[in-house]
């Protein structure tokens, strides 16, 4: 993919991202923060590609460290988010008000 195409994708992601996030009400800012924290665990994709394709010794250590860090970020982030959202659950079971 050409850099310019990626720049387009980036700009459109900025536009879509700001829209979608500005819509989240402040009640949900805690789960939003922790959910986006989990999302950047996507770097695990990059870490896995690196680790699965590398040969050298030093490079391997770097790659494995990246995998380790990214996994904790990803898994921990989602578990925390789910815990936070769990607190809203009972509210939903009661059903929407008004």
């Amino acid at each position, binding site marked *: 993919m050409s850099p310019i195409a990626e720049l387009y994708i980036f700009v459109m992601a900025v536009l879509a991202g700001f829209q979608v996030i500005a819509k989240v009400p402040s009640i949900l800012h805690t*789960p939003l923060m922790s959910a986006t*924290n989990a*999302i950047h665990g996507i*770097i695990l994709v990059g870490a896995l590609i690196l680790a699965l394709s590398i040969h050298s010794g030093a490079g391997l250590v770097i790659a494995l460290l990246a995998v380790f860090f990214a996994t904790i970020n990803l898994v921990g982030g989602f578990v925390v988010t789910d815990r936070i959202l769990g607190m809203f659950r009972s509210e939903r079971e009661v059903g929407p008000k008004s």
Partner: protein
Amino acid sequence: MNVLQQILYMVSATLFVLGVRFLGSPASARRGNALLMGGMGVALLTTLVFIPHFSHVALIVLVVAIGSAIGVVSARRVQMTAMPQMVALFNGLGGGAAALVAAGGTAPSGLADWLARLTMILGSVSFGGSLIAFLKLQEWLNVRPRYFLGLRVAGLVMLAMAVIDGLAGHASGSPALSVLLMLMAAVTGALLTLPIGGADMPVVISLLNGLTGLSAAATGFVLDNPLLIIAGTLVGASGTILTQQMSRAMHRSLGNVIWGQKVVESEGGGSGGPVQPITPEDVAMLLRYARKVVIVPGYGLAVARAQMEVKQVTDLLHGFGVDVLFGIHPVAGRMPGHMNVLLAEANIDYDQLWEMERINPRFRETDVVLVIGANDVTNPAARTQVGSPLYGMPILNVDHAGHVIVLKRSMGRGFAGVDNPLYGDPKTRMLFGDAKHSLGALVRELEGTA
């Protein structure tokens, strides 16, 4: 890259955007999180299916297993009050991973190599800064204000050196210079975060969260992976917006938060008049015969985990025909929206939670305000005391009400570390003790009078 793989990555990116969209309303927020997890699953599976060669599979599986275990256990074990530092820690690890991926990959073109270096800096700054944020919030680390200026200057010098190293490394391509680059950037993040006050930490965490997102996006450019670009940008946007909103709620500019404002040590200010304690019995009486009551929750409520007791008090008062509302300050607690999460857990109706702008005009006609473990967000010094670290921050004007009852354990200060003249106000009575305990006593009293 294979076309099918690209399309699957696109599906994953779409799931991310939609997931955040669904996070935007309480009713669909859990579904939103499920979509995000689904997007992550699609991304990871796609990556594994289309990878050209597999080396060190056993080793990698082991590392992933250990990492997952650590992630699950720590995320499950952590107390709700320690959530901010947990998020900070995860965030730092993500930033570190981004930096390492950028360092480990071989960037072919010139542009990609520049971006790789940028990622190493951004990711490492986020790593170093987040670790310090974690340590400070966990209260394992404390710094004297007189070192602040030195730390900040050193941080900027370190940043300049990292940038120079980045330029040199681009020219020579030496791996040693890359390692040095990351070390210096991490130290930069640490140095710049060290002087930041605890009360400003959530803003910084949100900023670092955005930074990690941007470094993930930059890695996407390096690895030619549009999914990383989109997901990372989404996080970057979220970090930017949350940071802005929090700074605004504290009436500070972002630069002011990071660089700090001149704190006039106003030890002498004191609390004005003498502090007047009150018993649960008297509080119950006051509440029972009030018409309008506003409850102002703060960080102490989270510490005491007393949300259920709050709910009980509310229900009892409703039973007596008292009109009860909650006044929610935008930065009450330690994370944006913290109080909402807490009160939702206790099944308190959203309609009763009024935001600051909406509740403030009502205090004048309120008979009793019950301040539960809140301090800074009710501090009138923010309105009057020029030079106070809180000065200029919009607060909940609880002192406009007829009576103010403050539930806290001691005369201890709030997050901003300043005295609260509210406690010396002749209208104010202090109900000392752990909030859960005090509220429990209140419930018994109210039940007794029923």
